[in-house]
């Protein structure tokens, strides 16, 4: 089984996060790393907080509209990367995000759940439309060209690989990072969660807490 990585060196999200809390020197290092992997012709990135995760992309939503993070300005954004050929982790995580949206009740209006494909060749706009609708009416599916998807994954420090295997559908399986990113209404990176780490009620509480804190200030 051969594996091919997408963009080298993007794996250590965790380590980058630790680096940023560890101190300024390391944060500068991460920033240098980020520059090293960011093509110069990207739209002005929204660098926020101390983390090296950059909420920047130019993609097409499941209704065929061109979108950038600005399209969700003013809303908290729950962003998850996956692909529709993923039978286990992706549907599990998307169903989890859907229940978080349901638990949020009326406050869900302030949250945009976003599913970005790392497999844009197979996950076309039409495929994404059918797929996201199965989970939640508010779920947004984003796809694009290979280059656009690569740019999005690089900015989010999402690591994925393609494994060639005879048994895999269409000849390849994919591995990918399982983080759910929470972005603030100004587009800045807030934090990451994983599906298995807390029940949906707990994640909904975390988001509600932030919404309330924002409203008080």
């Amino acid at each position, binding site marked *: 089984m051969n594996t091919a990585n997408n963009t080298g060196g993007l*794996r*250590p*999200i*965790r*380590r980058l996060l630790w680096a940023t809390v560890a101190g300024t020197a390391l944060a500068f290092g991460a920033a240098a790393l980020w520059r090293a992997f960011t093509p110069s012709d990207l739209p002005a990135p929204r660098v926020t907080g101390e983390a090296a995760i950059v909420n920047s992309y130019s993609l097409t939503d499941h209704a065929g509209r061109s979108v950038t993070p600005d399209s969700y300005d003013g809303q908290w954004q729950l962003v998850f990367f996956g692909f*529709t*050929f993923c*039978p*286990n*982790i992706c*549907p*599990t*995580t998307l*169903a989890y995000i*859907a*229940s978080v949206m349901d638990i949020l009740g009326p406050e869900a209006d302030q949250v945009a759940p976003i599913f970005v494909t790392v497999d844009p060749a197979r996950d076309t706009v039409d*495929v994404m439309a*059918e*797929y996201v609708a*199965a*989970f939640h009416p508010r779920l947004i599916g984003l796809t694009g060209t290979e280059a656009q998807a690569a740019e999005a994954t690089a900015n989010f420090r999402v*690591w*994925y*690989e393609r494994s060639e295997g005879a*048994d895999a*559908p269409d000849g390849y*399986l994919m*591995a*990918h*990072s*399982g*983080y759910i990113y929470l972005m603030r209404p100004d587009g800045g990176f807030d934090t990451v969660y*994983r*599906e*298995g780490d807390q029940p949906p009620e707990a994640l909904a509480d975390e988001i509600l807490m932030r919404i309330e804190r924002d409203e008080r200030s």
Partner: protein
Amino acid sequence: MKLFLAAVCTAMFSAAALAEVVVSDPWARASILASRPGAAYLTLRSDADDRLLSATTPVADHVMIHASETDADSVARMIHLDALDLPAGRMVRFAPGGMHLMLMGLAGKLDEGASFPLTLTFERAGAITVGVPVLGVAATGPEVEP
């Protein structure tokens, strides 16, 4: 002494003959799109040390035993297992986000409410066929399904 050994052997053989695997809570997630792989989940418990060697179903070309491994960087990867060890008395759970039976080459979409037979072949317990109900796309298991 020889007699004693023979007795032990007989005891072991009869234990093997009685070895039983209990398959519980099988279910599969409904397909959203055609020609995508599916996933089925269940719980296994064997009286004696045994191994799950393979699984087959008429609804899929082949079924793969997949573990799911998430590394320190939270990269999730599916690991193909040729066989799965079932230590005596231990509950082995296949569950969403973790170990699953991957259904490759599905003949059609798995529709919620349908069910299909799945035959599991064990090294000692032999073949066991169970009916697998298809639950909704957001299901997390048979118990919590409304």
